[in-house]
């Protein structure tokens, strides 16, 4: 590979790549971790086989995630941007043939509510999105830096290296970019504080320790477009005056680690990383630190101690990492998504960026939309879009009447009820409603979800993941979980609700780090908006959603039961009795309420009913 010494050479290199690109059609196959899990690699093999004879007309690209998880494995045909969803290996030939014929494979295009959509931008899932960060994923082979450069990559870096660091910080401040890791602190201010610290040695860390269950936007960016993050890191490091930096990534993201490692190697070979980048005199090294899977290590101070090789526990601030961070040096930590925004801002200008979003929250945010929606996936929306638009227009909630709430911000986020879906998505509104922006998990829940059980579930996650250093978080989350478990198992008392509220507010107030300070959110928000469900569990011992196993029993409706015997066959406890062709029944004393009979019954004959629970 040639080595680039000036920005002029980079530009020439880009022109050369573009000139070498023949005008052939390209098939982008979504091969992120999510796509691979649904067989994208097999589909890719089939495509390679099918297109073998037509190498002059068709090129195949294995890209990162396209965002539309529901449609995995999917492919996009460029330049027309034709979208094919849920492909199987045998579909490859049909698609290739349609490309050669200049046609569209009708059977494989995306359909929703009887309408069919051919192009990416027409599909409701993509229509309202603004994919300024994730939009390039389908165009880029993550392990080929030339693809990234062809898309205008490292242009922003070259531009930034000609400016003064103070100028870059000013630009980021005026763009109004705020940390995407959850807390929403102004990124430019953070850089300014780190830059203003005394001493020559400063560090930059990219926080890719994405631990929230159900959130994977950082993974998708790292897997799909690692060079974007590297470019952001170079600009950030230049602005704060750091020559050493780390990517702290979870070991559970093997593909992300692999792609970032490859990207760092290629950037180094091209002279875009290392000593004297593009003749600017600025040096930067990027190392990779792998996290061992503790949720709390996503917290800045815990992350620092983890890189130092110690037990990953938070430290009391102040001193802030910007003053006394990694190995005692001023350290700046930014989230993956925050860093991904940097090249975009430098490239397109602060004014352009500040024009997107609301007064206080600028730019876009990627959410992982999951739960009771038709279109699950990663959605990148401008700040200020309403929750309703995200959940109903993009997500296509299955039944608008039954949607109960949306849980935002991961395990320490809160539940927002449907009455508040008019709220705009920005830092202040979400915090005001008792949730947090967090890393951007969005779980849509319908009437079959028990809110007490949801609070219990997330609190359980937190009591296991609390580092245990500070008493109020460690004991508090355990006690919250204990009380919530009591309530879901029919042992709740009315005074428990007041205790939960008191306990929650103290945990929020007095905890050391962000984990504890947000830990009561799931409980407090459900208690505020769904108090009636708590009361029903405590007073009537009823779980309306039929989720809390201790409060329900499974019964077979003799009128509906056809006697097919499927439930009996599948019951692990031999709790179903009866003879074929006659209605079956369930022996309650043997039943462990695993719900298998309920799931397998094809005639809806198995029902959940609230049972009488004696007061404990």
């Amino acid at each position, binding site marked *: 590979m040639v080595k680039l010494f000036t920005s002029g050479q980079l530009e020439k290199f880009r022109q050369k790549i573009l000139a070498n690109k023949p005008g052939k059609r390209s098939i982008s196959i979504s091969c992120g971790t999510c796509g691979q899990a649904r067989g994208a690699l097999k589909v890719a093999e089939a495509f390679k086989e099918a297109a073998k004879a037509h190498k002059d007309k068709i090129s195949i690209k294995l890209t990162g995630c396209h965002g539309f998880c529901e449609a995995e494995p999917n492919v996009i045909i460029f330049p027309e941007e034709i979208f094919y969803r849920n492909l199987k290996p045998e579909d490859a030939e049909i698609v290739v043939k349609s490309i050669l014929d200049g046609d569209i494979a009708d059977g494989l295009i995306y359909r929703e509510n009887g309408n069919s959509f051919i192009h990416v931008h027409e599909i409701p899932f993509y229509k309202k999105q603004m994919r300024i960060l994730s939009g390039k994923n389908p165009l880029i082979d993550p392990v080929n830096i030339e693809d990234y450069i062809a898309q205008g990559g490292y242009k922003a870096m070259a531009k930034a290296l000609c400016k003064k660091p103070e100028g870059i910080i000013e630009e980021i401040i005026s763009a109004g970019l705020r940390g995407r890791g959850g807390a929403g602190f102004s990124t430019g201010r953070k850089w300014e504080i780190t830059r203003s610290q005394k001493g020559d040695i400063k560090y930059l860390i990219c926080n890719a320790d994405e631990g929230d269950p159900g959130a994977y936007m950082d993974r998708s960016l790292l897997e799909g477009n690692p060079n974007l993050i590297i470019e952001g890191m170079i600009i950030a490091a230049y602005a704060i005056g750091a020559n050493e930096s780390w990517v702290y990534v979870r070991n559970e993201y093997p593909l992300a680690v692999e792609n970032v490692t490859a990207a760092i190697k290629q950037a180094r070979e091209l002279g875009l990383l290392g000593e004297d980048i593009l003749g600017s005199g600025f040096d930067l090294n990027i190392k990779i630190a792998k996290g061992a899977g503790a949720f709390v290590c996503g917290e800045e101070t815990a992350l620092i101690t983890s890189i130092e090789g110690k*037990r990953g526990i938070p430290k009391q601030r102040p001193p802030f990492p910007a003053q006394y961070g990694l190995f005692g040096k001023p350290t700046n930590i930014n989230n993956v998504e925050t860093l991904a925004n940097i090249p975009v801002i430098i490239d397109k200008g602060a004014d352009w960026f500040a024009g997107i979003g609301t007064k206080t929250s600028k730019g876009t945010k990627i959410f992982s939309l999951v739960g009771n929606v038709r279109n699950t996936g990663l959605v990148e929306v401008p700040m200020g879009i309403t929750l309703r638009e995200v959940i109903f227009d993009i997500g296509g909630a299955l039944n608008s009447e039954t949607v109960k709430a949306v849980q935002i911000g991961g395990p320490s986020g809160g539940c927002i009820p449907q009455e508040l879906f008019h709220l705009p998505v920005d830092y202040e509104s979400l915090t005001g409603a008792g949730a947090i922006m967090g890393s951007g998990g969005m779980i849509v829940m319908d009437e079959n979800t028990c809110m007490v059980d949801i609070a219990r579930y997330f609190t359980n996650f937190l009591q296991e993941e609390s580092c245990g250093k*500070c008493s*109020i978080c*460690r004991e508090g989350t355990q006690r919250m979980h204990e009380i919530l478990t009591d309530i879901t198992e029919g042992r709740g008392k009315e005074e428990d609700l007041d205790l939960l509220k*008191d306990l929650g507010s103290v945990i929020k*107030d*007095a*905890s*050391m780090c962000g984990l504890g300070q947000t830990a009561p959110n799931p409980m407090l928000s459900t208690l505020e908006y769904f108090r009636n469900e708590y009361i029903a569990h405590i007073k009537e011992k009823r779980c309306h959603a039929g989720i809390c196993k201790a409060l329900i029993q499974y019964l077979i409706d003799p009128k509906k039961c056809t006697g097919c015997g499927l439930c009996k066959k599948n019951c692990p406890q031999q709790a179903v009795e009866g003879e074929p062709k006659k209605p079956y029944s369930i022996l309650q004393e043997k039943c462990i309420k695993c719900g298998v009979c309920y799931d397998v019954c094809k005639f809806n004959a198995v029902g959940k009913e609230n049972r009488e629970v004696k007061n404990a």
Partner: protein
Amino acid sequence: MPKITIDGIDFDAPKGWTILDTAKFLGLEIPTLCYNEGLTVWGGCRLCIVEIGIGEQSKIVTSCTYLAEEGLIVRTATKRIIEARKMILELLISQCPTSKILQDMAAKMGLNQVRFKPKWEDCIYCGQCVRMCEEQMMAKAIGFANRGNKLKITTPFNVASEECRRCGGCMYICPACTLRCEGPKPENVLCGRCYNELQPTCLDSFDNYSCWMGLKGECGTCEREEAEKKKGV
């Protein structure tokens, strides 16, 4: 020297002093548990929290870690602080009701209810023993293992460590293993609360009638012992 206001007292705190140092110097009482002058600060027990700033901007910080800075306004005993401390202590006491230090603290703070089920554990994970072992005894024989609800303090791989010299420093400093006296109601999570009546409480050893306060019967220990003696006879 940074000028700070602490509970309404203006004071020039020497450089490097924490809020806790300043408060102690001024005789303002802030309860502490995981803090020890001879060890590095930990900030884990959260009992030494104070409120800094005023109005909407005020926030809670641990006084043992927060350095006095110019213009800082500190309040050590606001309603918000007292309630939070009580809740923290309630959690700790329900975890380890046998600790004398916690019981005394509860009596002093006026904590008169424990709404959580007692766990009767022996450790409150204040980490003093770990720091003692590492910083004063230079042994590093024990440390934290696991996290969250599985947290524990142990030797590496739970086997007897060669690093341990059996110096007993960990036991010496442990606030949880000093047993509380039984008091009149031994079965309760909270003890007899003698603290407010006769200070200091629970003297290590005492004769029946040589209570240092010259009292007889308030805490009940002497009377009970006498009764037991009679029974024995």
